[in-house]
């Protein structure tokens, strides 16, 4: 951090590292990375939130680790080094979930392991952490994971509400009395195709509100 002493920890440039990926540089809706897991774990909100937090931990700490050793990594094997760091973090997260959040880890099953292949993480390590200081990389990791998590939560909110009639397991629609007047859950929302369509709608809204994102 020696070269950064003039700059405060939460300077506008640093905060941008967090806010940008949530909005106009969102990894899912703009960069279209990490789609696979976004479709797979968004049937219910609880696993989606845990997945988002797991990705956040993995991404933030992988970013910091890579940034710390960025001057030591031989260029030729940098991708393998990145993968090793990511796998290391993912296995630790997986083990901790198995020990302290067993039911959630069962719901997420293979997807925790598949964080390793989440392109957002590799992308951030390669594009950001290799060329920036640990603190900036940490913020960048948190920001990108937050952007990813935000979309996961939005998609899972609609899928759980319309597909199962609950929000975080709480039977909202039943309490509102919708079933007694003939409303039925849409089973289609639980299936993967509707995740893709929900995601598409989010991208559409995002772009219609932010004209910079539309390609010429």
């Amino acid at each position, binding site marked *: 951090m020696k070269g950064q002493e003039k700059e405060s920890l939460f300077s506008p440039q640093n905060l941008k590292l967090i806010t940008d990926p949530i909005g106009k540089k969102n990894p899912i809706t703009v960069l279209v990375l990490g789609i696979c897991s976004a479709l797979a774990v968004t049937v219910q909100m609880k696993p989606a939130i845990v997945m988002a937090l797991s990705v956040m931990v993995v991404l933030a700490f992988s970013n910091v680790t890579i940034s710390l050793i960025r001057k*030591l*990594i031989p260029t030729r094997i940098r991708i393998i080094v990145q993968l090793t760091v990511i796998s290391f973090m993912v*296995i630790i997260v997986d*083990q901790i979930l198995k020990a302290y959040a067993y039911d959630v880890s069962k719901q997420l099953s293979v997807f925790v392991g598949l964080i390793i292949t989440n392109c957002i993480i590799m992308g951030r390590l390669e594009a950001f952490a290799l060329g920036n200081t640990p603190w900036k990389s940490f913020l960048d990791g948190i920001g990108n994971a937050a952007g990813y998590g935000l979309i996961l939560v939005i998609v899972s909110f609609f899928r759980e509400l319309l597909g199962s009639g609950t929000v975080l397991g709480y039977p909202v629609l039943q309490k509102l009395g919708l079933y007694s007047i003939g409303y039925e859950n849409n089973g289609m929302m639980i299936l993967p195709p509707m995740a893709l369509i929900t995601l598409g709608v989010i991208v559409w809204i995002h772009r219609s509100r932010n004209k910079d994102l539309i390609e010429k």
Partner: protein
Amino acid sequence: MNKESNSYTFFFTVVMIVIVAFGLSVTAITLKPVQEHNKELEKKVNILQSINLNPTFEEADKEFNKYIVKTLLVKSDGSFTEGNGLDINLKEELNKPENERVLPLFIAQVDGHKYYIIPLYGKGLWGPIWGFVSLKEDMNTVYGVSFGHKTETPGLGAKIVTEEFRNQFKGKKIFDKNGNFTSILVVKNQKQLNEHQVDAISGATMTSKGVQNMLNKVLSHYINFFKQHKNDLA
């Protein structure tokens, strides 16, 4: 030192691997007891689900000790001893020749009724499936079941854990009127289901077949036990 030289690359890799391996071993060893405890709790929850109770993870230990009064280790000739059934590895036991197998049987007492709980283990489509089936005092009528699976297809085979599928088993019988062992069949496209049949899950033929085979294989081990002790245990 030249960062791009072969010897540096080699050195870097070795150091990295040693650090990573050390870190992972420490994590795995320190967390293992907690994880094992979780697995045991899950087993207890599943056992209690088969007698139609629904304890949370936290209550599992207490409820298990409250309701499960005895555990028997049963041999295929019908003889048994008392012991700890939770530690028995069903997969290993089922691979042994029939006369060497020792399978556990849990006896539960709920509101004055006795239930006999049998652990199940078998093959689904993609990997292992398991569960527990509880019988009423007549050692014939099914009181409840619970199923678990490792990697069955979500939305299809994975549906064996749903209440909809499990509730079908309630009241089914594993012996016919003449006392012959029939097990419970998981059938497709049957308009009228008899007392030994349940409806398969559409789109999950292999998993449904797996459930049927698992019930047949495991339950048949207890036939002699049921016949001999029908009256003296109840």
